[in-house]
């Protein structure tokens, strides 16, 4: 456990020389990715569609082995889904044979068995309520709207209180207001637990609002084209979005994204 | 398995396995049981039934039964494969097959079958030899008639109905069945096939050596039941009601079946003691079996395949 330190904080993820090629399709999805994420940091990946963001997250979650390069989590090689990580995928993927609350409780059941899951039921209902799904606990996924399913998937990730959250466009199907509310909720939860958050997003304001650092990516092959550190006071609120610095940062991210588009 | 049965107490507990599940066809066994004949002879007998001689032999050799009632040819086949199974009792000296034709067909003997079609149950069974020998004897060679394999019972009826066959080589139950289906039948079996006796009983040689008395008791009880049934046919059928009530539900059928099966016990050699066999018949049957490819020349020694040693013990 060689916990690296920078500004006195532990390095959570250290990725070096990472490359990924989908063999069969011969798609060079990721190239030369190097990065380092610190404990308690919130970082965002932003970039054109198909630039490899989901692939990178999948690799960080230990679900896919990169073609080349190292991925260290807390100093250890990631060679399987690590215990301390929770991931939320781009598609909600709720199981149709479980009610909403049962879907949320799935990771608990997988960890602690069915019996001990009961104790978490209140917690699950609490989470569902916080994301605005009170009253839908016993509905089956087929009866939820797109955004509702996504919110249920978020609850499913949060229920285990992971130290590291990997989120792939978690709020893509939500309207802006709900989204902002969820953003702040996410910030609150992460801060309360000193959790590290890695976020893939398509929303520039969201990236700026939440992140300590934004990685802009460009496509084909997917690589990190720019790194923008966001130095805004925390906790951030909706008022933060009115700050001139915020507007400035969104402009910078937008331009970086722009360049990412041109590159590809 | 009933392994213990053979070795128990005074050596009088055995399991027999029959080659068909009909109670009426096996009435001597069931009646002897019901009337207590075996018990009186000092034999405690368990009865099981399967379908076909191979299954009988397999059950015997696997130790599920002590002895059983296979046909002669399968026993020769078993010997050819190194199993020392010995025929010790001939229970149907009159033979198991009947060549039958519908009464209204105008066919009265095998000679009339020239150019006609004879149905057999299987393409290569003993009936085929039976038919061939008969037709040969009638001067109709192999090319002079057709054989059609039609299967048993209902299929034979279907074949008659469709007009596919003119005569049929039937077993006793087949005979009764077809009659029961509304055909008036004529038995046109000639004496050429007298040597082909029907099913009897066989046992591993070990058993014959170790428990001859028990097998004699079986034969004696069996024979007593045969004689008893001649006087009390109705009761023989009644006895079956317990084991196989459905079979005797149709009383006419059961009675007819009993009558026909009596024919199988009419020996062509009335002078011989009941249950005995003749070497020349075995030789002839062995020759047929060799011709049919069931056993190979020289694989089976007629002296080994049967024994008349117990026959004295069968007589009352």
């Amino acid at each position, binding site marked *: 456990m060689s916990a690296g330190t920078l500004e006195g904080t532990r390095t959570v993820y250290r990725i070096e020389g990472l490359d990924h090629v989908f063999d069969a399709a011969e798609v060079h999805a990721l190239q030369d990715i190097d990065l380092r994420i610190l404990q308690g940091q919130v970082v965002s990946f932003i970039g054109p569609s198909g630039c490899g963001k989901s692939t990178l997250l999948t690799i960080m979650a230990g679900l896919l082995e990169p073609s080349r390069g190292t991925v260290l989590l807390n100093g250890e090689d990631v060679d399987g889904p690590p215990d301390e990580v929770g991931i939320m995928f781009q598609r909600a*993927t709720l199981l149709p044979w479980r009610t909403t609350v049962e879907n949320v409780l799935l990771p608990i059941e997988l960890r602690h068995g069915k019996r001990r899951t009961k104790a978490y039921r209140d917690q699950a209902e609490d989470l569902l309520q916080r994301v605005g799904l009170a009253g839908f606990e016993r509905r089956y996924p087929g009866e939820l709207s797109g955004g509702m399913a996504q919110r249920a998937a978020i609850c499913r990730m949060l229920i285990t209180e992971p130290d590291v959250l990997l989120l792939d466009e978690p709020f893509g199907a939500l309207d802006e207001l709900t989204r902002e509310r969820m953003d702040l909720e996410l910030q609150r939860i992460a801060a309360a637990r000193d959790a590290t958050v890695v976020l893939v997003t398509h929303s520039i304001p969201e990236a700026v609002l939440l992140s300590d650092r934004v990685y802009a990516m460009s496509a084909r092959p997917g690589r990190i084209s720019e790194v923008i550190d966001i130095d805004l006071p925390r906790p951030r609120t909706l008022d933060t979005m009115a700050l001139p610095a915020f507007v400035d940062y969104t402009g910078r991210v937008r331009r970086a994204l722009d360049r990412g588009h041109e590159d590809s | 398995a009933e392994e213990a049965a053979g070795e128990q107490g005074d050596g009088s507990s055995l399991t027999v396995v029959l080659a068909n*599940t009909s109670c009426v066809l096996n009435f001597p066994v069931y009646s002897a049981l019901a009337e207590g004949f075996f018990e009186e002879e000092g034999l405690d007998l368990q009865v099981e039934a399967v379908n076909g001689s191979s*299954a009988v032999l*397999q059950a015997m050799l696997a130790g599920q039964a002590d002895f059983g009632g296979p046909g002669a040819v399968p026993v020769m086949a078993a010997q050819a494969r190194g199993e020392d199974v010995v025929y010790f009792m001939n229970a149907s000296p009159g033979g198991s097959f009947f060549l039958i034709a519908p009464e209204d067909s105008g066919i009265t003997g095998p000679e009339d079958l020239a150019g006609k079609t004879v149905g057999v149950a299987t393409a290569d069974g003993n009936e085929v030899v039976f038919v061939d020998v008969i037709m040969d004897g009638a001067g109709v060679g192999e090319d002079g008639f057709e054989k059609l394999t039609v299967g048993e*019972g*209902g299929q034979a009826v279907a074949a008659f109905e469709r007009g596919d066959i003119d005569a049929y080589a039937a077993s006793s139950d087949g005979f*009764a*069945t077809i009659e029961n289906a509304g055909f008036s039948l004529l038995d046109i079996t000639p004496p050429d096939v007298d040597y082909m006796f029907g099913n009897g009983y066989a046992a591993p040689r070990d058993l014959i050596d170790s428990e001859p008395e028990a097998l004699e008791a079986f034969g004696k009880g069996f024979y007593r039941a045969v004689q008893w049934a001649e006087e009390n046919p109705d009761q023989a059928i009644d006895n079956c009601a317990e084991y196989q009530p459905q079979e005797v539900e*149709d009383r006419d*059928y059961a009675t007819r079946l009993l009558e026909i099966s009596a024919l199988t016990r009419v020996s062509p050699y009335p002078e011989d003691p009941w249950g005995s066999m003749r070497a020349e018949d075995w030789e002839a049957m062995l020759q047929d079996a060799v011709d049919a490819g069931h056993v190979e020349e020289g694989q089976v020694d007629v002296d080994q395949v049967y024994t008349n040693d117990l026959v004295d013990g069968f007589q009352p």
Partner: protein
Amino acid sequence: MALTTPVSGREPRSAGGRRRKRSGLGRAGSFLNNLPQPIAVLLVVIVVLAFWQLIVAVGGVSEIILPPPLAVIEEIGVVAVQLATGGFLLGQLWLTIQEIVLGFLLASAVGFLLGLWIGQTRFGQRAVMPLFVVVEASPKIAFTPVFIAWFGFGISSKFLMAAFMSVFPVIINTAAGMSAASEDEVKLFRSMRASSWDIFWKLRIMRALPFIFAGLKIAIVSAVTGAVAAEFIGGGVGFGEQVRVAASRIALDRVFALIFYLSILGLILFGAISWAQRKFAFWDVTSITRKKEKK
């Protein structure tokens, strides 16, 4: 007709939505579809009986080959009396039921496990599967004497035959069901560090259920015929033997009556499996149905 009136599990939410241009056939279909089940079944039975009577009457088929429906119905009554009064037949039927149920349970358990193995491993798929196909393609009935030789004259040999004859559909369908879970779902479970055990029980099995139930439905029905066939050949006991006895004296009306009871038995067992399917794979059937059930 079938194509215009789907009732399958995943119809869009338009339950009852009116649609233009419905064909006349479609209408006839929906009339039939809306009949209450007892009436629908009765309708089918009547059509079948009428057709049967027609064949017997017009086709001039001998009673020995196809008995007229009325004679069979009469015999069904006769057998019913015997069964009701606890006669000989009842005991035989009970034996056969035991064979079927034991055989089916064994086939389900063994077939399920083998299906898993074959569905989930390359070795199973490529090397073991051929072996089962070879065994299955053999005339299994021919093994009856061997089963008797090994397992005796009692019901063991028969229920083992029943299991032997019904295990294959369970294997094949379970194996096919093993790849029914989607890539996304497996990824989700793996991300939650689910054990292979959990991925298996909480995902793959659930997704495989429609396949497995289809297999079990075939198997329960095969178990009936398997047990009966074993009794047919293996002799001595059970309802199958009774069918044989009746057939051997060409009492075809009786044969049909006995078969009727065996079939009803099969139908009841099949119904039990279908019930279990609706219970355990409820999410696979129409949400409409599910919701209706809720009320």
